[in-house]
């Protein structure tokens, strides 16, 4: 059994070892080993290919871009996903566009790792999930693993990918333990985490575990939910969702993010457009359109938990079949 954060450091370590063009930098990542302890030991082992930077998110992301188009394969850390707006210009206006507008002269093999997500009582400015901000940016990939095995395999795949990849690590997953194997995982492929005939629940990161927990509760009521882990949110594996839905007819998309403007809307829209009359139901469970509150009393109610999810499924199935 390996912890999620160990899976991260292992993937970095292996890719640094495998390719000398891989470099890794960010704030407090080298000597201190990262504020989430996800990168210890790399500096010692890989020397100056791993280094600490000034508190300059824009410079470090911009420098990553410039180095990626001239031979390196940089991996950078933006400590919290909430800080990504500071780095966004370089990602949106430089990295994401280069491959296409250069007439495919050169792509931008860079990875931005970042700790994201709510539930750790860190308040509105240290708990966000940046996916909505970047979902509408052609040229970027967005990877969101839910297990240690996927974390390792997908981070390795992200580093080997020739395109800019945002790799999001949910804070509430860092201490999660799980088995790890050596099978590679392709970016952009969803995975069925649990089979079920009555309903498809699609989610990512912590949401997958919430969905699995809810599915167990629902099973006790005789409702069998299929749970799909999207794993990559850009590009979205719409085919996997559609395939499951062809079996179950009901789709619930669970997103840790605001109701307006998130990835669950794009999933729902694609399904509605493609198979409106072939499905029985489709709906979303998200967080409210509000900043993330600090107090545990509020934050717990804010996030879509397993109980709320199971209850929502029960009442929706009843109201629809009624």
């Amino acid at each position: 059994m390996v912890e999620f954060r160990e899976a991260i450091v292992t993937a970095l370590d292996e890719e640094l070892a495998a390719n000398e063009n891989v470099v890794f930098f960010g704030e407090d990542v080298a000597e201190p080993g990262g504020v989430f302890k996800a990168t210890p030991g790399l500096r010692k082992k890989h020397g100056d290919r791993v280094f600490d930077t000034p508190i300059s998110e824009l410079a470090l992301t911009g420098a990553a871009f410039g180095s990626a188009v001239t031979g390196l394969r940089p991996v950078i850390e933006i400590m919290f996903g909430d800080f990504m707006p500071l780095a966004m210009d370089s990602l949106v206006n430089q990295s994401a566009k280069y491959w296409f507008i250069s007439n495919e002269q050169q792509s931008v093999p860079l990875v931005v790792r970042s700790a994201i997500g709510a539930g750790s009582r860190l308040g509105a400015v240290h708990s966000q999930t940046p996916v909505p901000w970047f979902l509408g940016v052609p040229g970027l990939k967005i990877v969101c693993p839910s297990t240690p095995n996927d974390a390792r395999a997908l981070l390795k795949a992200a580093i080997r990918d020739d395109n800019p990849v945002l790799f999001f690590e949910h804070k509430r997953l860092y201490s999660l333990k799980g088995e790890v194997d050596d099978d590679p995982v392709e970016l952009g492929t969803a995975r069925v985490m649990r089979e079920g005939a009555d309903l498809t629940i699609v989610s990512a990161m912590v949401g997958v575990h919430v969905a699995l927990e809810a599915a167990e509760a629902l099973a006790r009521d005789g409702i069998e939910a299929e749970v799909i882990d999207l794993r990559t949110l850009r590009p979205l594996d719409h085919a996997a969702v559609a395939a499951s839905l062809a079996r179950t007819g009901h789709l619930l998309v669970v997103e840790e993010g605001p109701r307006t403007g998130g990835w669950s809307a794009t999933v729902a829209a694609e399904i509605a457009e493609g198979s409106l009359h072939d499905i029985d139901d489709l709906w979303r469970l998200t967080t409210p359109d509000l900043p993330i509150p600090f107090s545990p009393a509020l934050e717990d109610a804010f996030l879509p938990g397993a109980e709320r999810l199971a209850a929502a499924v029960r009442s929706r199935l009843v109201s629809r079949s009624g």
Partner: protein
Amino acid sequence: MVDSGPADALLDMYRRMRLIRDFEELVQALFLKGEVPGTTHLCIGQEADAIGVASALGDEDRLAGTYRGHGVALALGVDPQALLDEMLGRATGVCGGRAGSMNVIDLSNRLIGCFGIVGGSIAAATGAALSLKRQGRGGVAVAFFGEGTINQGYFAECLNFAQVLSLPVLYLCENNRYGEFTPYEDVTAGEVLDRPRTLGIPAEQVDGMDVVAVRDVAEGAVGRARDGEGPQFVETLTYRFVGHSRADPGAYRKQGELEEWKLRDPLTVARARLVDELGVDAGEVDAVDREIGAQIDEMRSAGLEAPLPDPALLAEASEFKG
């Protein structure tokens, strides 16, 4: 040699520093007991900055702090109980438990906010200075931030902006030598004071362990800003006696450094001034300590008994005003 001034004024500053110190130790203790959710960034060792600067401010002035903001909040007169309750996620918190330690806002006490984004306080104060200048009542805005923050785009852009517009703003850089776990000199080129000076902004350094020195320098700087001389800059030389945040091993500190700085604990320095220079009876100072100690004990019980916010507010609250 800085003149200690009248004994009662210094004793008052001592009392307020003691309040900050004891408040922070209470937060620390409650944190270790699991009563403070999330994380905290304490300002133990840096109390003289908060009190020295606040002592130079008037009713029209405004201040923006950082995630390490308990000290400035208390110094400005934020109700200690409401501040503690905020850390505890209670409905009685200064922001109703919605904000938490890193994002405290109390406009009625001149605190524009505490900002979780490194550099955010600089923008907030720069903008407030725009208002204060227009209002024409002599108000000055103050931005607190650390030395690691001078590498953020916010810093460079805002200082130039303020200088070009000749805004009444004091940039107060607390140089505690580290940004999180990374030493200043590892990630920063040149000296702090040279950056504002290059823009023509008057800048001076002060002993941040001596509240009298800080107050005097702040009074000068605030006075010049008030008189229409444009932005001012002060660097305090200080030290954080505790970890950056909850889980800080402190491995980055240089051998003996902490111990050396502790000899210059701002409370010790102020007490020495009171007793040795101004002839105040040590018993009188002890009485202040006891008084604050009692206040803190009461706050502790009241805080732990304070009600949690009602999650129903999430359904009622709007993301918008009006």
